[in-house]
Structure formats: C-alpha cells, structure tokens
C-alpha cells in the first residue's frame, strides 16, 4: 500500500520536474540555430556611454599584481588600475605609457620614451624610475601574472626621467608582446613593502590607469571601479564598472542585472529577435588540445601513426555535437584561423578513416587476430586517454572514431589537478586539456614544440612528451631572433607547415562562444587582437579617440 503511494507521488514529482525544465530549455533547443548558419547582424546603433556597466562578478582577488588569484579574470582587473608601457587594440600593439620606442639593430636594447605629465592616482608623478623599480622589484617578488621571466631582460636603466632602457640577455622577438601585460607599479608605495603578497592596503591599488578601485568585497565577490579623474589618457566611456555576484549569468542577463554575458548556441533564439541585444561570436582563442606521449609510447614517435590520428578523429563532429556549432575545428599548424599569423596554406586533415587505415598499415599496424584492434609484433594499438571530468563526451566521441580506424581507447576521467600533474610529469599515454591564450604571440609554437628551449614554462612540453624535430628547432631559433615582423611572420608560417606535417599534438577545436550585450546600456565592447573576452580589454571602457582611436 505504502509503496504504491510512494510511487504515485514520485511520478507526480518527476513529471512536474520534467515540465519545469522543459519550459526552461525545451523551446529553444528544438529551434536552435544550426551550426554554420551565420546570424543576421543587429545593425542598430547602441549607446557609446554609460554611467555604470554591470558585469558578472566573483572573487578573483585584490586587484594588484601580487594578490590576484591564478584562476579567473584577475589580471584584467589589475589592468583597469595599472597601465603597461604598451597596450593591445583590435589590430596590434599600440603605445600606452610609452609614447614611442626604439630597438637597437642587434635587438638587444629597447629604449622607451615615456609619456609626459602622467601621475599616479595619488598625485605623485610617474617617471622612468618607476619602470626600472617594477622590473627590479619583480625579480625579488614574482607577481602572479605580468612578470617577465628570468633569462629575458638583463637589466633596466633610467636614461632620464622620461626615458627608460631595457637591455636583453638575447634578442627576443616577443619582448614587446610580453610588455603588454607588464603592469607598472608605483615605486613610492611599493619600495617600503617587503611582502607584496600580503599587501592589501588601499595604497596597494594606486595606479596610473583609467579606473580606481572604489570597493572590493572578497566574501561576496563584488568589485566597483570608478573613473580615475587624473588619468592621462582618453576619457572613460563608462563612468563606473561594477562586478556583481550572480549564480547564473544567463538568468542575471535576462533579468537585466548584468549588461553583458556569453551564452551557449542552444539559447541563441531567445535573443535573436530582441532589437536591443547584440550577438557577436568570440574569436577562436580558447581550445582543447589532444596530446601524444611519445616517450611512454614509442610507436607514437612514428609520424604516420600521429597523422592517422589526425585523419581518424572527426573534429567537425566535435564542433557540431559538443560545442553545438560554436567552435572552429582544430588546425594541425596549431594556430587557430583567427590568429593574426595563421597560415591558410598548410596541410589539411579532414576526417578520413580510410586514409588513417592506410597510414597505419604503412607503419606496420594490421589487425592480425580480427578483434578490431590493430597490432604489430604482438602489441596492440591500445591507449588510455586521460581527461578532465568535463571532457568525457569529447573523449567518448574520439574513442568511437578511433575504434573505426582500429585504435582502441579507454577514456579515463580525472580530477582537473590530477590530470594537470600527469601532463606535467609525462605520466599519461594520450591526454586532453583545454585552455585559453591561443591568440597570443606565435612564439608559443617555439616554447611548446621546440625542445631547444630551456624555458621553464609548464606547457613547454616537447621534452616531456618526447617530441623532437630539428627543422622546427632551427625555425624556432630564427623566429625568436627575427626583429622584422614580416620576415618573422614568414618563419611562423613555415613553422605551421612543419607542425601540420608532423602533428606533435592535435588541437581538437577552438571555441567561439556567443557574446551578448544590451546596446541601449553600452555598446562600446571591443576585442583585443589576441584575446577572446571583450570585457578584459581596457579599451572596451574608454573613448576611442587620441591614443586609443580605432584603427
């Protein structure tokens, strides 16, 4: 008797639940914009000014370079307060605290001519000695982000109050790019601070930048930035920026609590007919990479085997089924097609299981015992694929495709940090990891895939995974020393061709989420040429005139 009643009650509850959730996502899921179909652009003019812009918050630490958290957008909040010598706009690097600069012909000396009349927000003048101080100080106290790693700059010299010279250890073509995130801190404040990691005073956030930190609440994860009236640069187009805590940014956006958010393609339809909402896709600068461990599995050192993987994995399917169309499939030259130096003329690998089979046969992998898995000398082509718990569906699809080519894969989901540790220690066979920064300076092709660099970057995995290519190493060395951008671009193109032939790793796909914002609130959002998030650019909050004029 009791059981029956229970059952009835439960059914009622479940039905109610299904109905509720159907009301929530049902209608849009059925009519979601199919992959590839471009959106009709909202051509209406939006507001170019706002008193306050509300954005999704969360605690990312006190916004000075030493106290932000390594996870999340802490560094962009530091950038609202602290300026760098050079900044990034839609196209490239622009002058910022440095009005102009000169590079010596051997590429060893960078001389920066600083803007005059710049003051810190407490009224003290900004000078070349602040720049030198920042560098010296950060050699002792390594900041969370924006520091210059050792082995790049030998020393910094103050030439006169408005001129500062960086002497490098060796020519580094990506040096200027590194400086775009090198935030200058005030000497007159920090010189007395022995431990900046515990420095949470109001003085810790005195900068030269366009905004002041008006309020920060750690426990609730809210920030309020207001215009710095002493700012040397263009006026702020947004008087104040408030980051407020939300549990679900989509709902908060729909209810008008925040003015900007990113959404999944499944719910696009809710906004496409709203004349007040602008929808723009992000550039493809966040992606998933598939790693081979050639040290642990020597047969993977055979290029044909890795190429077979590239043919067998259906990357378009991943974009369609996992990213729901909001992504671009991986290019074997590593750089995404939205990267400024993407080489459109590189070897392509479209989904072709037959070709994969041919390559494996050529390499001597044949299914001799008819179990569907290829083998050679008694060894089976069978691997464990490690990934984070959020990437299981990607892993399952890949497993299916690879089994068609006769490669056996077991998917092993790990907690994120365990996966990272295995990746770092080379303790895996195949592995998937997702990260951002694919739009950054192309020098990362060198640091990740050349095993010549002794650079300590965790992701410079070539040595760890047992990948070695002399041609690539030579190109990498050239690229690092080439100061002419056009020539350097040529080298980077060549590097992509080499990589695409060799497949040291497979970028699976890069995501292109949809940004949505209310144009009547504020419409001045812009993308830096190397970054996917519009809200992270300082220029998004400024008038686009003078130094920051649109190019």
């Amino acid at each position, binding site marked *: 008797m009791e059981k029956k009643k229970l059952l009835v009650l439960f059914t009622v509850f479940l039905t109610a639940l299904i109905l509720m959730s159907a009301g929530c996502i049902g209608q849009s899921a059925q009519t979601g914009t199919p992959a590839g179909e471009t959106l009709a652009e909202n051509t209406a003019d939006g507001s170019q000014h706002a008193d306050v812009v509300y954005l999704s918050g969360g605690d990312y630490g006190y916004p000075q370079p030493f106290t932000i958290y390594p996870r999340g957008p802490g560094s962009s909040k530091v950038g609202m307060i602290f300026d760098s010598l050079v900044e990034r706009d839609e196209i490239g690097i622009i002058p910022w605290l440095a009005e102009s600069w000169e590079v010596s012909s051997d590429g060893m000396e960078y001389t920066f001519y600083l803007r005059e009349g710049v003051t810190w927000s407490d009224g003290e003048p900004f000078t070349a000695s602040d720049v030198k101080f920042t560098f010296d100080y950060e050699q002792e106290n390594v900041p969370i982000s924006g520091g210059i790693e050792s082995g790049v700059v030998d020393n910094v010299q103050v030439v006169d109050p408005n001129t500062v010279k960086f002497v490098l250890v060796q020519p580094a073509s990506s040096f200027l790019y590194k400086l775009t995130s090198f935030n200058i801190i005030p000497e007159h404040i920090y010189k007395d601070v022995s431990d900046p990691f515990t420095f949470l005073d109001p003085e810790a956030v005195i900068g030269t930048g366009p905004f002041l930190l008006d309020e920060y609440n750690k426990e609730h994860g809210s920030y309020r930035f207001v215009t710095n009236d002493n700012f040397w640069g263009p006026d702020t187009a947004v008087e104040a920026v408030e980051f*407020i805590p939300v549990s679900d940014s989509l709902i908060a956006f729909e209810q008008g609590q925040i003015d900007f958010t990113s959404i999944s393609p499944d719910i696009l339809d809710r906004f496409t007919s709203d004349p007040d909402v602008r929808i723009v896709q992000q550039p493809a600068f966040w992606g998933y990479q598939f790693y081979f461990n050639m040290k642990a599995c020597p047969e993977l050192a055979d290029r044909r085997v890795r190429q077979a993987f590239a043919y067998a994995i259906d990357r378009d399917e991943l974009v369609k089924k996992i990213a729901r169309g909001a992504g671009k499939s991986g290019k074997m030259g590593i750089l995404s097609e939205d990267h400024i130096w993407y080489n459109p003329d590189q070897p392509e690998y479209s989904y072709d299981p037959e070709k994969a089979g041919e390559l494996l046969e050529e390499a001597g992998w044949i299914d001799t015992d008819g179990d569907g898995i290829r083998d050679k000398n008694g060894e089976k082509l069978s691997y464990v694929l490690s990934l*984070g718990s959020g990437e299981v569906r990607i892993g399952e699809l890949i497993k299916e495709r690879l089994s068609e080519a006769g490669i056996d894969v077991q998917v092993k989901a790990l907690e994120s940090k365990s996966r*990272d540790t295995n990746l770092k220690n080379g303790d895996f066979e195949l592995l998937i990891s997702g990260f951002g920064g694919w739009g950054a300076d192309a020098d990362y092709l060198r640091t990740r895939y050349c095993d010549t660099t002794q650079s*300590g970057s*965790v992701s410079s995995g070539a040595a760890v995974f047992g990948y070695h290519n002399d041609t690539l190493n030579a190109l990498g060395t050239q690229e690092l020393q080439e100061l002419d951008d056009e020539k350097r671009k040529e080298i980077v193109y060549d590097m992509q061709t080499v990589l695409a032939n060799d497949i040291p790793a497979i970028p699976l796909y890069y995501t292109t989420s949809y940004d949505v914002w209310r144009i009547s609130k504020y419409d001045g959002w812009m993308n830096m040429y190397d970054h*996917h998030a519009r809200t992270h650019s300082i220029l998004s909050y400024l008038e686009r005139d003078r130094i920051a004029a649109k190019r």
Partner: protein
Amino acid sequence: MEKDRNSFIFRLLSTLFVILAINFFLPRMMPGDPFSTTSADEVGEEIIVMTEEQRLYYLNYYGLDRPLYEQFLVYMKNLMTGDLGRSIYYKMPVSDVIMLHLPWTVLIVVGATVISTISGVILGTLSAKNRKKGSDRIMMTGLIAFAEIPSFLLGLILLLVFSVYLRLFPLAGAVTPFADYNGPAEQAWDILYHAFLPIVTLSLSQLTGVYLLTRNTLITVTTKDYIRTARAKGLGEKTVWIRHALRNALLPVVTRTGFMIGIMMGGVVLVESVFSYPGIGMTLRSAVVGRDYPLIQGILLVIAVSILVCNLLVDKIYGKLDPRVGI
C-alpha cells in the same frame, strides 16, 4: 570522578591530534600542488599558467619545498600560538578567510537546524496523535518521498521556481551588492531575504529525519505505563502529551540534532554552491580545487571542532532533560 575527567580530556586531545594529522597529510596526498594548474575547468575560463621558475619560487615562499615532517611540526607549533597559517589562494590569514565565510554558514546551518527541529517535532507530534488516520499517512508518505530528493536538486528546484520564475527571491549571494542600508533592521532583512532559500533547502533535507524520529518515539512512549498513570491521574490530554510524552520523546531528537549539524556541515557545500552563497562550504570547495593546503586544514579543523563541541553540548542538554544521565 577526577580520573574520569582526566581520561575524558585525554580522549578529547588524542581525537584532536588524529584529526589534525589527517587534516594535514590528506590534502598533501592529492596529486598536484597549488601552482601546477595548466588546464581550465570550463570553456572560456582563464587560468594563469605559471612557469616552472614561478612555481618553484612560490613553493619556496610558502615553505612547501621543505620535508613534510618539518612542515607538520611548523604547522603544529603555529597552531599552538593560534596561528592557522596563510591561505595560498586568497593571500590572507586562514583565520581571516574563515571568519569572513563562517558566519554565513553558521547562519544557514543554525537557521535550518532550528526550523527543521521545530517543524519536525510539531509535524511528528501531529502525526503520532493522528496515527493511522489519513493525515498521518499523507504526511508520512509525502515527507519520506521528500527525503529522497538530494538537497542540491531541491535547491535547484526552489531556485528555479522562486527566483527565476516568480522572482520572489534573489538568485545568488548573501547580501545585495553595494547596498546602502537605512539602519540595522533593513540590513537584517536583506540578510534574511538572501538566506531564506538556502535555509529552507537545508531544513527540508533534514525535516523528515526529525519528523520520523519524533513520530516513532512518541508512538512508543505513549504505550508506556507512566502515560497510562498520567491519564489515570486525570490530567488533561494536552498536559499528558506535552509534559509526559513529548518531553521523553525529545531525548533522541536532541541527540539527533547534534549529529545533524555535523551532517549539514557536509551537505552545506552543495547547497551553498547552488545559491552561490559565500559560506565555508564554497570556500572549502575552491580550496580543494586550488590545493590551498593551509585553508583546507583550517576549514576541516573548524568543522571537526564544531562537531566535537556539538556532541559535548548534546551531552550537557541531555543531562538537563534527563537527570538520570550525568557527566
């Protein structure tokens, strides 16, 4: 008596030491360290990937490159002076981080304990009084079915219905951001307004247990001789139920309430996540994800100590309710 007390204190201290040791070594046995993150957890998330040089610098700065036993000794020594260490992720003293977030958790846990105990006892009494009648059956099946819903799911449903559709309650947080209050009354109201749904969720998840316990104990108690005696003395039904039956039936309920706080401290992690409520549970979660050893140790210690204290309190209250039990 003196001997008893000594052995009691000894037991308490050794329990504490074991807890401390587990709190210290367990987090350090997880793979990775606070600075070795290379992958993001969700699409579009940004992480700062540290160079090996940076990683070693920070390991040294926080003393994590020293032998484990040495770190443990330092930890124990600092603990003696009341120093819980400094959070690696938040860069603040662990005690400050805990003091920021603990009050919120205490608010919803205590609120939920009070509400679920009181309403559980009331419903249980009503049910026992109307035993085998319709209302008893409906309550019984309804509440048991309810107890099967995991608390985070319940929280999600409440959030969807009351915050998203009806817009009666806030979507997240514990206070209105950047609010200017006209006096403490308005502030208290704002805090209660934000705490309401988390408290209700937690209460509902605990309600059934209290209800069933009250109901069943009452049913057992009411068959006892002393109840018959009380009735025979001609006492009114109300007095019999409240002074004689309920008072005796409450003993196990009090014990349960003590344990309940411990259970809720665990469940609160999920509920806080659903409501983005800035309590200790959310903090623990991010501390584990970020391998923030000092913070994990600190929070686990607070939870362990609060459970120990609750058990002690239960013993004390027990003594008050039932003079036969004494410590």
